[in-house]
């Protein structure tokens, strides 16, 4: 049982979480108090001043009370101005990354995330970061607006095509933390999940070394399987034969498939590679031409690995 998890808030795992939760809880108790006062007064008045005879008039016609009106204008005003300052300070802290922050480039696309580490020269589909290290995410999208949300870190920011937007955090404990897309982005918006894996600095170095050449020691098909989830193919193509947004890869190799325009094509290396680079050209019948092109995204070696993986899915 995580002790930082409460009825209202998820577990805390970043340096922001404490101050955000402090402001949340402060406000929660202020509002519970206000709400209780209002509801108790309403209930009391409704019972106490219930009309007993049909022609009964109100016992007093009070239309104005300067003291009361001034008080209940001033007190909320003071409270909300204090809340403004609390929120502003916390927010500015969230927006300004420390100069020693490690940079990771984040790309959102329908409906997957990818992470590139420019300094370390590695790429991944699950964000891996060292604990107690400020990390700055420089984020952009290849298609529509997404949003990168880590509940345990209490931070999020929209990921916008055509521009960079950033957020930063410093994880305070190791573990695996959920990431959601929170800006509606179409069909599989609610499947656009990933995770932040927070590890010790040593584990991080080991991970970088292994990730630097993900194909090392693997057959092309095994490497293809890694790319299948890393590059986001998994969002639309299944490998168990069930229908997804796109055709399943299971058993598709070598067979002839009907296309939207009435022609048919045999699924071979040429067709698979063409479908990665120009996916809208030969769309399998019954599917929408919505796959983003991977031209320039995949290296030749990666394309070959994916072909080998599809070939292996009998």
């Amino acid at each position, binding site marked *: 049982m995580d002790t930082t998890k409460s009825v209202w808030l998820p577990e805390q795992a970043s340096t922001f979480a404490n101050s955000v939760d402090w402001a949340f809880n402060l406000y929660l108790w202020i509002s519970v108090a206000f709400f209780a006062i209002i509801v108790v007064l309403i209930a009391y008045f409704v019972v106490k001043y219930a009309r007993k005879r049909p022609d009964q008039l109100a016992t007093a*016609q009070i239309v104005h009370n300067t003291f009361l009106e001034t008080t209940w204008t001033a007190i909320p005003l003071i409270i909300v101005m204090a809340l403004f300052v609390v929120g502003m300070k916390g927010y500015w802290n969230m927006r300004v990354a420390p100069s020693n922050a490690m940079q990771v480039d984040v790309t959102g696309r329908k409906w997957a995330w990818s992470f590139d580490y420019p300094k370390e020269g590695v790429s991944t589909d699950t964000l891996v970061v060292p604990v107690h290290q400020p990390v700055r995410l420089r984020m952009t999208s290849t298609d529509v607006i997404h949003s990168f949300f880590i509940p345990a870190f209490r931070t999020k920011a929209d990921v916008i095509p055509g521009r960079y937007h950033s957020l930063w955090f410093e994880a305070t404990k190791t573990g695996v933390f959920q990431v959601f897309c929170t800006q509606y982005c179409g069909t599989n918006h609610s499947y656009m999940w990933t995770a932040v894996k927070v590890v010790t600095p040593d584990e991080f170095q080991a991970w970088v070394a292994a990730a630097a050449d993900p194909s090392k020691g693997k057959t092309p098909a095994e490497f293809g399987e890694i790319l299948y989830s890393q590059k986001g193919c998994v969002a639309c193509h299944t490998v168990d034969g069930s229908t997804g947004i796109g055709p399943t890869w299971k058993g598709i190799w070598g067979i002839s498939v009907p296309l939207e325009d009435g022609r048919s094509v045999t699924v071979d290396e040429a067709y698979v590679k063409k479908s990665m680079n120009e996916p809208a050209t030969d769309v399998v019948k019954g599917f929408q031409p919505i796959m983003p092109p991977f031209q320039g995204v995949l290296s030749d070696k990666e394309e070959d690995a994916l072909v080998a993986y599809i070939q292996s899915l009998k």
Partner: protein
Amino acid sequence: MTAHVHDNINYLKTSKGLKSWLTTVDHKRIGLMYLASILVFFITGGLYALLFRLELWTPNKDFLSVDQYNNFFTMHGVIMVFLVVVPGIPGALGNFVLPLQIGAKDLAFPKLNLTSLYLYWLGAILAVISLLAGHADSGWTFYAPYSLSKNPAVMWMLTAAFLLGFSSILTGLNFIVTIHKMRAPGMTWFRMPLFIWALYATAIMQVFATPVLGITLILMLVENFFHIGIFDPALGGDPILMQHFFWFYSHPAVYIIVVPAFGIASELIATFSKKEIFGYKFIAFSSVAITVIGFLVWGHHMFVAGQSEVADTIFSFLTFFTAIPSAIKVFNWTTTLYKGSIELRTPMLYGLQVLFNFTIGGLTGIILAILSVDIHLHDTYFVVSHFHYVAMGTTMIAFIGGIHYWWPKMTGRMYNEVVGKFASLLVFVGFNTVFFPQLIMGSQGSPRRYYHYLPDFQIFHQISTIGIIILAVGLFTALINLLMSLRRAPDAPQNPWGARTLEWEFAETPPVLFNFKETPVVTHGPYEFAKEGA
């Protein structure tokens, strides 16, 4: 003098047949037609919500596909915002009640009023065409570039919203002129019922804010058809600009939605407490204050969208000021009950629900203005719940309360009081069961618009789904109760609630064609229950 005899019979009987209704310029008949249309769409939008809530019973697929789910929440949002809550209270109750409450024969521009209704219907037809043209799946916010995918259903929907905007502008214009120029002798500004003040503030927002929506939607259509590069980043456009435009309308729209409800709540609470409303001028001016501040806070919808930190800070600061007039209203309504003579009739039960729900709706709004906390809560179920506490819990509940309050005046019939109270209790329990768990689910981090969710959130979804069933039963019970009353002979007295406003004290039940047999002369304020007798 046949014309006068004709004028002096009840407006429902002055002429018969469908044509007489479709060509009427009588604000009361137009109000009733709005009411019927809005209820049809309220039921439609509600059924969408019922279906997708049932789908959310488990984290994975139950009976709707993911695309159907995305379409259903889009339809729910578009229908409820543009066809129900924005036009709802002004179109239906405002139309019927406004001239009666200020002692006028009709609105200033009766034909323009009918034009508003026809534009509403045209917009509604386009929304139905969108339904037939495919799956609109953009969400009601139409964010670019997702909504620029050339989906014909989305484009029909944009056009529908554009026409509905014009309907809204014309109604607002009509109300402003009527309130300024058509008040009966003695109806000074500070003798106007608070519902009129609320409609006045709303009308100002409709006239000033809605054109911006029109411009935005036109630019969206132009972008879709001609790819100019206004909002589409692939063409050099700016999707954040679209959000600024959209919220420049849609934030004031939230106040267009809720301010009329404040007006109804004031009528109900004062009348059923037989009490002068506490702080009349504060309530009247707080409606106007919310109007002004409401124009300056749109940027709080974009705290995570990538606008500058300076803009975020300024919008946060300004947003906190909306809390003050809102809080004043809640305190004033509560104080009005003090030493009153409180009668818990059906409309009053809805009035008290408004007070309860709006307190939660308002308090959950203030926390979203706290910048650092909003970053966590933004785009989660917390926001969904906050919005529904305002749009449904405040506006629709006030609307339903208002329908129960003015129903005898509109139809000449009293409904069954016991059934009415029972239905209002179900609505209260149902509504809060739907939306309270969503506050917790949201602050725990559950994103909105999710078809597929973490199993941790299932319990909240299930409570919420049980709630919507209770709510639906309550709403249908209320509707059937109202409709059943139409089968009876007219039995409503002129002033069943002992109210002090003109529509009850001077106008017959139901009113005559031009509302009053002779122009009323106003000698007292709207809530002067101490001075009995006119």
